[in-house]
Structures are given as structure tokens and as C-alpha cells.
């Protein structure tokens, strides 16, 4: 009977569930947003700091053009300076002058990167040697923001050394992807290789026939450095020697977040032979957080080192970066208002309540089994006598 009383928990469960559903989540969203922008700011400042430190250190290689800073446009002013040396392989620059800022903001899904990588690997495996691959990028565009979500391969013919895109193939594919991803449009094209050159511009002009202002993504599979070897460009018409020519401007891009994608990417990135049966569930779950925090710590250390170095006079005083570092430190603590504290404790209480209920259920189960066995033990004796009375 005592066990049955504990089953009043179902009502309690549904009540608490309703409370949780109407939980005030605004503060949490704000906290999350600020912590993410905080981390982004740390990331961008540390990229700038590391760029400057690289210039000073004599033995390190020339810093790659800031291909991979996930930063707001203010940082491109600082990083844009290193763009001016980009020269294409066979003479003649195709890059616009340094300091030109792109007109759109781009967010890139990791799926596209894996798509291109697989395309390249497949072609290489089948041909036996690395080949340049070509494909189209699709996604959504809202105003001045482009989100590149997916990609597919394009068929091309080589006529007289130039690459001509097969239009019919593209039309077939366009019809197909419109059926499945009805809200995605063609955004641009991609290819593999090192820094962009005139052949890329030729292909870019062909894509311009299909779309007004396409973006151009270049992935370098042979890159040696550890930054993401992906660059995104858009084209501008500039006057060079009096003639309007098409030049490429590098765009800054961010990596798009989508929870399922993040988990998938995490999973494939860390999947070696999994013998995680031994480790606890908590450890598994915290592993991802731990790696992220390790990165954060290393970036913060880098910034601190930079500040100390410029204090000692080893690195030249860069006011822009130091201003950013100052702004960064002033943003801490991110959220400490009373309202936030209140909501945060509410959230903690809700989770504590859930675990309390879970523990009670577990107790009920154990009690139930115990009582059953107890009854069984005692009834066996009584039952045995009764049964014998029935049959004999």
C-alpha cells in the first residue's frame, strides 16, 4: 500500500513539466548569446594577436592571408593589410586592392566543406592523381547575408585548355534540388586549388551568366597550415589601366551552427575506435566541453602573452588590438544582473527537481521489487500448504 501511495508522482511529474515548459528562457538565451559573442571576440582578437606575433618572429613562415578569422568586419581592417601580397600563379593579380571590404556576410555550413573534400578525394582515388574539381553552391540569401548550406558537383568540358561548364547538366541538377530543397537557390560555385588565378575568373564569368553576383569558394587540399584552407570571394568590377576588369575580393565568413550538424561533425571528428564503455557517461559528455574550453584557455593565454610582450616592448604597440583586448576584458562578467541570477537559479531548481523525481522513481522501483520478493518468500510457505490442501 505504501508503494502505491508513491504513485501520486505522475501528477507531480506533469505539473512540473508544465512549469518547466513555461519557464522564462529569455535570460538564458541572452546569456548564451553573449557568451558566444564573447567567445567569438576572444577568437578574433587572438587571431589578430597571433598574426602580429607571427610577423615579428623571424623563423615562422609568412602569415597566410587572413583566410580563417571568424570575426566582424572591424577586424578585416587590421587583417586586410596582409592581403596585398596575393599574386596568382601565372602573372597578373586577380585580387582587388587591399582594404576592399566585401558587400555581403557569409556563413558556411561544415557540410559543404565535407562535400567538397569527398568530391576531391573520390576523383583523386579514381583518377590516381589529384584533379581539380568543380561544383555549385546552394543555400539561402536574405538581404546582405548569405548562408551556404549545400553543394553538388558540376560537369564540365575542357575546350582548348579552358573549362566550360556544362549548362544542361546544371539545369537537370537544378530541377532536382528544387524538388528537395525548395527554398534554396544557387549562390555560387566552388573549386579546389591554391590561390585564385585567371582561369578561375573565366569560370566565374560563366557562373555570372547563371546568377547575378555569385560567390566563389576555394578549398586548398594541399594546405600545410592548420587553419581552415577555405577562402570565399566575390567579384567586383574595377577599373584597371582604364579597362573594367573583374577582380576578386575576399570575404570573411563564419561557420554556421546547427545543433544536429555540430553533433554530427563532433562525432565524425572524434570517432576512433570507441571503447568508451569503461568511461562514465559524465566524462563522455564533458569531453566536448573540455576540448572547447581548452581552446578558449589557449587563446586567452595567447592574448595575455601578446599584451605582456607589447608591454615589454618586444612587439610594436598596436592600438587597435589593444583597444579590442580592453573591450573584451570590460565585457566580463557577461551577465550578472539580479534578474539573470534569479532565472538561472530557477533553471537549476528545475533540473534538481527532475533529478529528485527520477531518484524517487528509482526508489519506488527498488522498494516494489523488495516488497514483492518479501511477499513471495512468505507466501511461498503459506501457498505451499494451500496447494497441498487442494490436491490431496
Amino acid at each position: 500500500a505504501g508503494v502505491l501511495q508513491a504513485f501520486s508522482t505522475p501528477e507531480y511529474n506533469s505539473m512540473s513539466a508544465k512549469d518547466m515548459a513555461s519557464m522564462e528562457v529569455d535570460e538564458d538565451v541572452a546569456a548564451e548569446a553573449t557568451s558566444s559573442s564573447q567567445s567569438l571576440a576572444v577568437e578574433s582578437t587572438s587571431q589578430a594577436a597571433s598574426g602580429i606575433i607571427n610577423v615579428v618572429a623571424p623563423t615562422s613562415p609568412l602569415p597566410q592571408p587572413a583566410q580563417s578569422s571568424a570575426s566582424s568586419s572591424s577586424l578585416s581592417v587590421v587583417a586586410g593589410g596582409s592581403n596585398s601580397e596575393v599574386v596568382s600563379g601565372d602573372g597578373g593579380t586577380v585580387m582587388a586592392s587591399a582594404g576592399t571590404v566585401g558587400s555581403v556576410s557569409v556563413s558556411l555550413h561544415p557540410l559543404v566543406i565535407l562535400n567538397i573534400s569527398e568530391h576531391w578525394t573520390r576523383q583523386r582515388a579514381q583518377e590516381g592523381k589529384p584533379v581539380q574539381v568543380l561544383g555549385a553552391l546552394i543555400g539561402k540569401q536574405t538581404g546582405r547575408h548569405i548562408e551556404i548550406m549545400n553543394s553538388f558537383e558540376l560537369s564540365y568540358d575542357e575546350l582548348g585548355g579552358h573549362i566550360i561548364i556544362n549548362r544542361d547538366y546544371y539545369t537537370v541538377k537544378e530541377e532536382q534540388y528544387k524538388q528537395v530543397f525548395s527554398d534554396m537557390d544557387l549562390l555560387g560555385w566552388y573549386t579546389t586549388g591554391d590561390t585564385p588565378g585567371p582561369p578561375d575568373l573565366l569560370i566565374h564569368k560563366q557562373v555570372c551568366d547563371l546568377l547575378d553576383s555569385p560567390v566563389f569558394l576555394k578549398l586548398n587540399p594541399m594546405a600545410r597550415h592548420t587553419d581552415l584552407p577555405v577562402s570565399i570571394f566575390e567579384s567586383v568590377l574595377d577599373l584597371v589601366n582604364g579597362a573594367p576588369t573583374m577582380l576578386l575580393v575576399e570575404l570573411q565568413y563564419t561557420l554556421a551552427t546547427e545543433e544536429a550538424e555540430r553533433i554530427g561533425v563532433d562525432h565524425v571528428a572524434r570517432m576512433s575506435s570507441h571503447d568508451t564503455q569503461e568511461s562514465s557517461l559524465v566524462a563522455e559528455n564533458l569531453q566536448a566541453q573540455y576540448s572547447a574550453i581548452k581552446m578558449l584557455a589557449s587563446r586567452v593565454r595567447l592574448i595575455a602573452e601578446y599584451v605582456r610582450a607589447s608591454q615589454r616592448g618586444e612587439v610594436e604597440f598596436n592600438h587597435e588590438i589593444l583597444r579590442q583586448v580592453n573591450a573584451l576584458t570590460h565585457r566580463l562578467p557577461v551577465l550578472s544582473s539580479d534578474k539573470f541570477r534569479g532565472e538561472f537559479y530557477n533553471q537549476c531548481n528545475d533540473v534538481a527537481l527532475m533529478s529528485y523525481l527520477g531518484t524517487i522513481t528509482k526508489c519506488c522501483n527498488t522498494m516494489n521489487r523488495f516488497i514483492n520478493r518479501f511477499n513471495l518468500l512468505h507466501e511461498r510457505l503459506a501457498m505451499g500448504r494451500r496447494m497441498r490442501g487442494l490436491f490431496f
Partner: protein
Amino acid sequence: MNQSQIAQRTWEMANNMESVNAADEIYQYDRKQQQDILQAKPWEKDPHFFKQIKISALALLKMVMHARSGGTLEVMGLMLGKVDGPTMIVMDSFALPVEGTETRVNAQAQAYEYMTGYVEAAKQVGRQENVIGWYHSHPGYGCWLSGIDVSTQMLNQNYQEPFVAIVIDPIRTISSGKVNIGAFRTYPKGYKPPDEGPSEYQTIPLNKIEDFGVHCKQYYSLDISYFKSSLDKKLLDSLWNKYWVNTLSSSSLITNAEYMTRQIFDLSDKLENSETALGRAGLFGLDPQEKKTEDKLSRVTRDSCKTTMEALHGLMAQVVKDRLFNQIPQAQSQAQESAQPSSQAQA
């Protein structure tokens, strides 16, 4: 150049060599070998022939994202790949423009048309593999085959061998932080499988539990492993350089709030069920009856533990973020500069 630099240069040169290194050999498609296998059909004699399945990183990501994009609707698609002994290999996947458990005839035709068009176009750009299976999503109710799925798969295994069925749950993926996926092959009708022992337990919501129970013996699951190319590995490593920001700022308590609520409702229903069952058992007190109610309550307990643990994990992430970004020790401050942030915090 010192020793380590020489060693590094030689290693890099070796990696850049024209020949494909071992990890990427799986991307080669040997048409003759595949056709030989298709002729031999070793799976006809043994219903349990295929034991493992290897899924490429790209295929997994595409399937997960497609499943997620469907929200609470089931979505489906096909997979391209090949066979290697008792292992099925999935190289790529693509979405189909139809709903998950569609049974309309014209929907089937549309899917078929799309499929042939897609595979033909793919062959033109160097993807030679054939369709090796289908996948669909079970948003929120776990990875298993429903009655319709079982009959569809049995049909496929009659006419389109080799074929595999994959099920993905995007909602559970997000709530548990691990990819929730299962690969299955059905047994032919009338085949009695040898007793396999208990498979991994998963929570099934009440409204689906009957469908699950009736058919769960008609198929078996394959061991899933994943592979990625060397370029994938390099890109993923450098991706982490930026992605850690997203990992740190994700908040699973918020993303999963709705799913958790639904789970709790489901738990309360299950508890009520086991309560009534217990009431009945009290009258009999016989062994088999007790075993059933015990199982019910134990199952509910296991489910509730799982839900609770997921909530706790989410809270752990929040607490970590709070410590990192909100709680700054005001103790040590030598320079005057640091006095300013502390006064700002108090303001």
C-alpha cells in the same frame, strides 16, 4: 634544417605523393569487382549474411541534417554505396522529395523518377556507386522499424538486393549529444532467427510501443562503423579551430526543452500504466504476473534515469559557462586597470 624538419618534410612529401594512401582506397570504385559480387549473390543463402556497415562521414552528416530539417515530420532518402564481403559500405546519401512512410502510389513513382535522374546525373560526375539502401527518420521515438518499414524493407530485399534500411532520430541525437542511428536488415518471412540476446535498450513512447513489439523480431541490426578520408580528417581538425566557439555556446537545455517535456508526459503515462498493473498483481501474487509489472516499472525507471541524466548534462554546461564568463575573482589586482572592470561589475 634540423632532424625534425627533415623528418617532417619527408612525411609531407610521402603524403602528397600521387598514389592514394590506404585510408582513401575505399573511395575507389571497382566496377568489375562489384558486378562479380552482384552475380554471386552470397546473401541469398544466409539471411544473416551482412553483419557490418560502414558509413562515410559525409553520408552521416547529410542524413542527420536532412532528418533534422524535417522537424517533426518523417523524411526519407536513399543511399549510394557498395558491398565488400559481409560489410556494406555507404558512400553518400541524397534526400527524396517524398514524405517518410508514404504509401501513395504516385508518390512512389515520383520518388523512383527522382532516384533514376539523380543516380544518372551522379554517374556523369564520377560517382559510380549504386543505390544500396534507404534511410528515414523517426523524430523523437527512437531507431527501430515500424510495421510499414518492415514490409517496405522486405519488399526491397526481394527485388533490390543488396539493400539496407537505416533509421535516424534527429531529436534524440540533439538531446543526448550523440548520433542516434540504427541500420537494419529484415529476415525473410517465416525465418526463425537464432536467439540473439538482448539488444541495446531504448525508450519507446507509449503510443509506438505496440508497433515496436510486434515486429522487433523480424529484423536484426548491423554494427555501424564510420570512416573518413585523410582530407576529411585534416579539414575536421582545422574546422575545430573555429567550431569550438559553437560547442561552448550551445545550450542543450533550451534546444531540448520541448522534447524533455514530452518525455516527462510519456513517463507519467507509463507510470500510471504500471500502477494499474501493480494493483491487479496484488490480487494474484503469482510469479509470471509479477515479472511483467516488475519489468514495466523497471523500464519506466530506466527511462526516467535517462531523461534526468540528459537534463543534468545540459545544466552542467550552463554552470560551466556561468563560471567561465560571469564569475570573475576580484581578489588579485595589482595594476589600476583591473580596478576598473571590478567597479564596472558592481555598477
